[in-house]
């Protein structure tokens, strides 16, 4: 399929099982390469949380021809940006560099993807860094609150199998090698090359990735579920402000009419200055600097969460006000004007948010991962235009009414405990002082 749009010229391909796209936009002087593996948290065995991320990091830590330092030296020398990261549903490797350096960077890319050696000493370095990073996270109340929320909302599901110092320490080189051998296969990969491409560069890149082995099958995973009520308080006695995460089970990204969810959440808490939560909790009440809601929707389930913070003295007030906004939204629904504005935002902003070839690459990978179709990038705007108010209000009742709630607070317990009776609907509070 070929499309010419403001996004550039997009050619989709399927080369002997390897699917992907070429996004051409002349004049920029830069090239981006993004390779997505269709697999994320489900690749981590129980008790081995963090394996997929460690694997992604280790891909650039040594190859047959180059040491870790040589790779870093060469990529840095040409001012190339690269990022290797694992997420809930995918592992993404991306490079950005100036076109004039293509011939120098190409051999490195070839080595990284086709001849990684995963040296033991490099693995030990990365493991120590990963463990220290987890302790560093505890020093960030916001990151800590999100971590505790994610771990508990998904609990025994692979999405809740997060890295811990213990899980990281148990990961072996053999497991990383095994992962590489099992997932670097055409059926599990999606490639986007983009930017200021010419025929020679395009052909060279496509020929390179055509060497990948065929086959590969995605691991089947059950849907994530959350039941019951849970209230976790991480006590930080020196805090003067509390981080708040509250939410419940959400839904998979492949849910039909997902655009209705996006519009509904925009009105409730995803639309920044236009959202009800920000208007009520920040602008009118002055209880926070930031509050937002999101549906974190993945391949095998998801969650809904409100993320906010408030000073110790007003923490409970902020939570109660958030609950009231949520209840009113479910009960009375959105207004015509709110939906009209939300639709206009998505319709207008989708183009602005795809300004660079790397942005377009991200969207194409997203569409592939969630089976949205090659034409998703062109059609998405139209899907928003069709949404009706009755649908938004129906979805609000259906997806925001769960009584199975999780509340996480990171803050100063002794200064708040007397007010916690007001939060009885979350069940009995569990206070923790140490994570690891």
């Amino acid at each position, binding site marked *: 399929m070929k499309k010419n749009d*403001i996004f550039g010229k997009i050619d989709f391909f399927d080369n002997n099982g390897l699917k992907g796209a070429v996004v051409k936009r002349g*004049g*920029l002087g*830069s090239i981006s390469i993004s390779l997505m593996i269709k697999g994320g948290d489900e690749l981590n065995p129980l008790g081995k949380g963090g394996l997929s991320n460690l694997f992604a990091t280790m891909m650039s830590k040594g190859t047959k021809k180059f040491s*870790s*330092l040589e790779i*870093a030296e060469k*990529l*840095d*020398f*040409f*001012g*190339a*940006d690269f990022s290797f990261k694992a997420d809930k549903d995918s592992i993404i490797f991306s490079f*950005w*560099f*100036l076109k004039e350096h293509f011939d120098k960077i190409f051999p490195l890319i070839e080595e990284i993807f086709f001849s990684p050696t995963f040296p033991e000493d490099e693995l030990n*370095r990365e493991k*120590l*860094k990963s*463990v*220290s*990073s987890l*302790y*560093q996270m*505890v*020093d960030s*109340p*916001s990151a800590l609150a999100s971590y505790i929320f994610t771990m508990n909302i998904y609990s025994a599901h692979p999405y809740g199998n997060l890295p811990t110092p213990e899980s990281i320490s148990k990961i072996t080189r053999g497991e990383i090698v095994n992962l590489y051998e099992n997932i670097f296969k055409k059926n599990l990969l999606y490639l986007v090359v983009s930017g200021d491409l010419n025929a020679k560069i395009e052909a060279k890149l496509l020929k390179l990735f055509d060497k990948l082995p065929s086959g590969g099958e995605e691991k089947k995973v059950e849907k994530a579920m959350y039941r019951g009520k849970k209230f976790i308080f991480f006590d930080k*006695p*020196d805090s*003067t*402000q509390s981080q708040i995460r509250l939410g419940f089970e959400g839904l998979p990204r492949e849910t039909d009419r997902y655009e209705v969810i996006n519009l509904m959440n925009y009105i409730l808490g995803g*639309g*920044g*200055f*236009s959202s009800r939560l920000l*208007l009520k909790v*920040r*602008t*009118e*009440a*002055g*209880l*926070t*600097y*930031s509050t937002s809601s999101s549906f974190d929707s993945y391949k095998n389930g998801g969650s809904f969460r409100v993320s906010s913070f408030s*000073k110790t003295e007003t923490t409970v007030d902020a939570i109660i006000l958030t609950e009231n906004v949520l209840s009113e939204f479910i009960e009375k629904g959105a207004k015509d004007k709110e939906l*009209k*504005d939300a639709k*206009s*935002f*998505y*319709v*207008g*902003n989708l*183009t*602005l948010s795809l*300004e*660079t070839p790397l942005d377009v690459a991200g969207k194409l990978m997203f569409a592939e991962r969630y089976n949205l179709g090659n034409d998703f990038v062109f059609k998405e705007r139209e899907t928003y235009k069709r949404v009706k108010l009755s649908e938004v209000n129906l979805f609000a009742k259906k997806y925001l009414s769960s009584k199975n709630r999780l509340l996480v607070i990171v803050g100063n317990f002794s200064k708040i405990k007397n007010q916690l009776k007001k939060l009885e609907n979350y069940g009995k509070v569990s206070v923790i002082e140490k994570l690891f």
Partner: protein
Amino acid sequence: MKTEKFVLDNGFETLFLKRNYSAGISIQLWVKAGSRNEIPGITGISHMLEHMMFKGSKKYGPQEHAQLVQANGGELNAFTSNDRTVYYDNLPPEKLSLGLVLESDRFLRLSLDEKEFQTERQVVYEERKMRTDNSPYGKAMEMLFALTFIAHPYHWPVIGWESDILSWTIEDLRAYYKKFYSPENVFLIIAGNFDREKARLLVEKKFGKWKKIELDNLRIPKEPEQNGERFTELKMRVELPFVFSAYRTPPYGSREALVFDIAERILSGGESSRIYRKLVYDTQLALSAGGGVYSFLDYGLFFVYGILNRGKDFNSMKRALFEEVEGFFSGVIKEEELEKAKNQLKAELVKSTEKTFSHGMLVGESYFYTGNPDFYLKKATLYDSITLNDFKEVGEKFISEIKRNTVVIKPEGKR
């Protein structure tokens, strides 16, 4: 591509950056005032005013500006720094008029309502708690500036001291708005895909009646010479101790500031950089280590940091960091290192021009700091003119133990 400038009779300047391939436009208003323009007792007021710019003007109610931009497919925000306050609206191309109408209303006729002010003060108080008081790294950065600058307004945080946040009055804000939000003290950038003539007419219509006022000469204190290390150690509930150190350097646009841009790349630009290799890779003393450069109107700040890895010795990490930085300027620098740093800086410049918004920001920064909106286009050539000898010179002048300012944060109960 070069920018075009035109000036209205009241002194209001507009810069056009035409990018016909852009999917949208970026409207940016740069106010030549930030925390540098404040005085003790009202620190943080520049940032507070930035918040109040969203809280209603003559025609539009609180948050209506933001809601209208978003409802037209756009995005917007603002930020305050030590030297400047910048507002932006990124919009589809056909919404240029809307953006200018909205900006003109708040720049010429801001409401500054007492009730809105009292609520927003609480919002800013929450912001300070989040960014600084409950963040060990935010706290350390605040202390680092306070140590490095003792006379100059860069001493205080952009968000303001807590006691000042609690004591500003609406009159303070009104006086500040009147003094600094005037046509000669603000400039406009329109970047992206737009019609030049239509834009010019719109700017004249919306900003032409803005009354010019006499600008006061600011009397800004100069920093005294530093002749000894300044050091502070804080005890906090942290898992990993860390060190931040800074050296005062020359202002934006100077040749010496460009030397520090390159030095920062060699020392901390990627995993092959000197600090990373020594502290993170070879010795594994640090979980993370590196540095950065702030370039301001009156001075700059060259800083380095190290966050201790689990089970490693803090003093060994700190010593290694200082040796690496202070030994760098007088030691041997390889030609390849210099070339690598220049390549990185040039690539960053290209990347910044890929997006309409960040391209506009480059133009704004160039104009604000040097008076030449196309200064960023010259930067690559200027970097090329830096030679190995330049490092020795700036090192002798600015980087040594007696010029060092250090903040150490350690876990409570440990020495």
